[in-house]
């Protein structure tokens, strides 16, 4: 049985946060997700709390293996993120983080599209405060762009849901065919939040602008809620294979040249989402399991990476690769955790990414998508390259920047430690995770072939990095902005609008001058005839007027005489 809809305890609980202070507040906040996950351990599959409103049959809570898996990992992510933020004294961020996590959990259990929409929008609104809390002009603007896009995605979802309802008579959130306006709108709404290529810019724009602790929250929920929604709504949609493959390959080029290390991680996040989207597109039991497993392990190692970079930002005040280096000397624990996260992200054997990503790559090969399989392998090699090597190397090693920051605060170390431990635990004993996947797993990750080929892939791309470094071919970290697709709406479209506005101004001005000339001409003529000395404005004597009238009358009389 189940007493409360999952996630609601975090949302409602968030409003009591201002009444607690100091450590009591921290413990109180931590208890909310702990109670939440406790509740999930005893539930059984089914639909809970159904009710009807305005003719829609809503089912706010649906429990099955897929929703439970995301429920678990969202709770774990909330716990880790909260511990990481223990030192924080910012009530707004604390409430926003809790509501955001709660809404993501609620969304994962939503049994109908209306409930999903409500949670979808709450995640958007709550999370933007984690960006705005940086309290810089850049974060304010990025947050605005983020909010517009996120809320827009929700509006598309709602519109699609209503159209879908009127066509099928059902509002239940289940597998849909990508035909007809309703499902297409819903698909685009999911695609925005899952950061499909060209819909992805809000991600790389906003996440690096969020607070040190905010980015850790952000990295876990929004995009993975979208992955869940896609896995629920559109499994086996072939288009997703191609979209996903593009996602794995497209952002990594940016990751190589980007200088802001949190933005590098965001590009790599986008690339990892691509693997999950491919898994959904293939749509077999193996590949859906792969997507779910990869979402699970991805949330953990991405959290470790964002936490370690957050700690660097917190201690040094910068996160630019060009200004960092040599930090391992004074931040050894952070360095160690970062390396664990990097190894997991790169899918090293014995780390979490290895046992989850290989499900998807194998599924692609088994189903005969050889080209996609090749792209995924290329993307895997390069993940190691930018997430696995670049992040730890430029922050903690390379040339010594001379910075000697303190080790990260204890609460941050604890949070990183827990997440890093889970990364290794899942990697060493994958059956913890495999047992809770949506379908039964008949897959062995640790075969000789898998391990050896993966080690080849990884060590040779490390070799490539070393070779490029030693020969000086490697592009240096430079302070820069690299144009991405958001350039189109941040610069190009405003420029076009500017040009349009300017041409309207010019046309307007020339029209005005023409009209002025016409008016001046009319005016001149009027004053010529009606003006002071104009013929029609002249005054004459009374006698003259009488003579004129009489003569006109005389002419008329003569005319009429001859007429009759």
């Amino acid at each position, binding site marked *: 049985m189940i007493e409360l809809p999952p996630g609601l305890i975090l949302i409602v609980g968030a409003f009591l946060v201002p009444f607690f202070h100091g450590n009591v507040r921290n413990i109180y906040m931590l208890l909310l997700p702990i109670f939440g996950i406790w509740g999930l351990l005893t539930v059984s599959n089914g639909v809970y709390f159904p009710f009807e409103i305005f003719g829609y049959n809503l089912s706010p809570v649906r429990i099955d293996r897929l929703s439970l898996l995301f429920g678990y990992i969202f709770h774990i992510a909330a716990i880790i993120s909260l511990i990481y933020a223990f030192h924080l004294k910012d009530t707004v961020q604390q409430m926003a983080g809790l509501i955001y996590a709660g809404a993501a959990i609620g969304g994962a259990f939503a049994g109908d599209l209306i409930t999903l929409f409500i949670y979808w929008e709450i995640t958007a609104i709550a999370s933007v405060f984690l960006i705005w809390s940086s309290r810089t002009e850049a974060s304010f603007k990025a947050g605005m762009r983020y909010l517009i896009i996120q809320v827009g995605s929700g509006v598309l979802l709602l519109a699609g849901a209503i159209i879908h309802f009127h066509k099928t008579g059902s509002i239940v959130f289940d597998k849909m065919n990508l035909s007809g306006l309703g499902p297409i709108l819903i698909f685009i709404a999911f695609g925005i939040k899952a950061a499909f290529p060209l819909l992805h810019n809000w991600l790389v724009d906003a996440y690096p602008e969020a607070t040190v602790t905010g980015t850790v929250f952000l990295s876990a929920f929004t995009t993975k809620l979208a992955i869940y929604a896609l896995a629920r709504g559109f499994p086996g949609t072939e288009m997703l294979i191609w979209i996903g493959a593009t996602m794995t390959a497209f952002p990594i080029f940016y990751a190589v040249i980007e200088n802001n290390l949190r933005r590098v991680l965001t590009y790599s996040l986008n690339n990892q989402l691509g693997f999950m989207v491919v898994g959904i597109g293939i749509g077999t039991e193996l590949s859906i399991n792969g997507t779910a497993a990869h979402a699970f392990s991805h949330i953990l190692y991405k959290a470790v990476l964002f936490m370690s970079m957050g700690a660097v930002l917190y201690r040094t005040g910068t996160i630019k690769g060009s200004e960092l280096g040599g930090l391992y000397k004074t931040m050894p624990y952070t360095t160690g955790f970062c390396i664990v996260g990097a190894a997991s992200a790169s899918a090293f054997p014995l780390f979490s990414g290895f046992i989850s990503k290989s499900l998807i790559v194998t599924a692609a090969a088994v189903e005969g998508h050889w080209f996609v399989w090749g792209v995924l392998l290329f993307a895997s090699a390069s993940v190691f390259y930018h997430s696995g090597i670049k992040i730890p190397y430029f922050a903690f090693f390379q040339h010594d920047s001379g910075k000697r920051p303190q080790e990260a605060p204890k609460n941050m170390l604890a949070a990183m430690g827990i997440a890093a431990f889970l990364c290794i635990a899942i990697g060493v004993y994958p059956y913890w995770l495999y047992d809770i996947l949506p379908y039964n797993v008949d897959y062995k990750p640790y075969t000789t072939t898998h391990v050896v080929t993966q080690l*080849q*892939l990884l060590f*040779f791309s490390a070799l490539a990095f*070393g070779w490029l470094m*030693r020969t000086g071919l490697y*592009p240096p970290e430079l302070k*820069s902005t690299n144009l991405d697709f958001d350039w189109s709406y941040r610069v190009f479209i405003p420029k076009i609008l500017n040009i349009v506005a300017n041409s309207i101004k010019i046309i307007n001005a020339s029209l005005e001058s023409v009209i002025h000339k016409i008016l001046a001409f009319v005016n001149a003529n009027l004053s010529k005839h009606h003006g002071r000395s104009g013929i029609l404005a002249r005054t004459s004597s009374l006698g003259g007027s009488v003579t004129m009238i009489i003569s006109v009358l005389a002419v008329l009389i003569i005319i009429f005489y001859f007429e009759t």
Partner: protein
Amino acid sequence: MEDNSEPNKKSFWLDNKKNVDKIWYALILICALTVLADLFYHKHVEYSIEDIIPGMYGWYGFIGAVFLVLAAKILRKILMRSENYYNENQND
């Protein structure tokens, strides 16, 4: 912003260039070993190309990574702007 101002005289293993070289040679050795390993077990693969070339994954990874970096280097010429690009643009 908590730079430790007192001079840090402790020297680290990695500060010595020779040790960095050692890591580099160890890496080359490991790569060679992974390719050799291919000769000693039966591969379970989906595509025959994986089995024909020893160390196929290694070559693929190496070429892929080099391509990635060199392509990104070229992309930089097109995409790179100054750090304040977007701010400058909003002000004009």
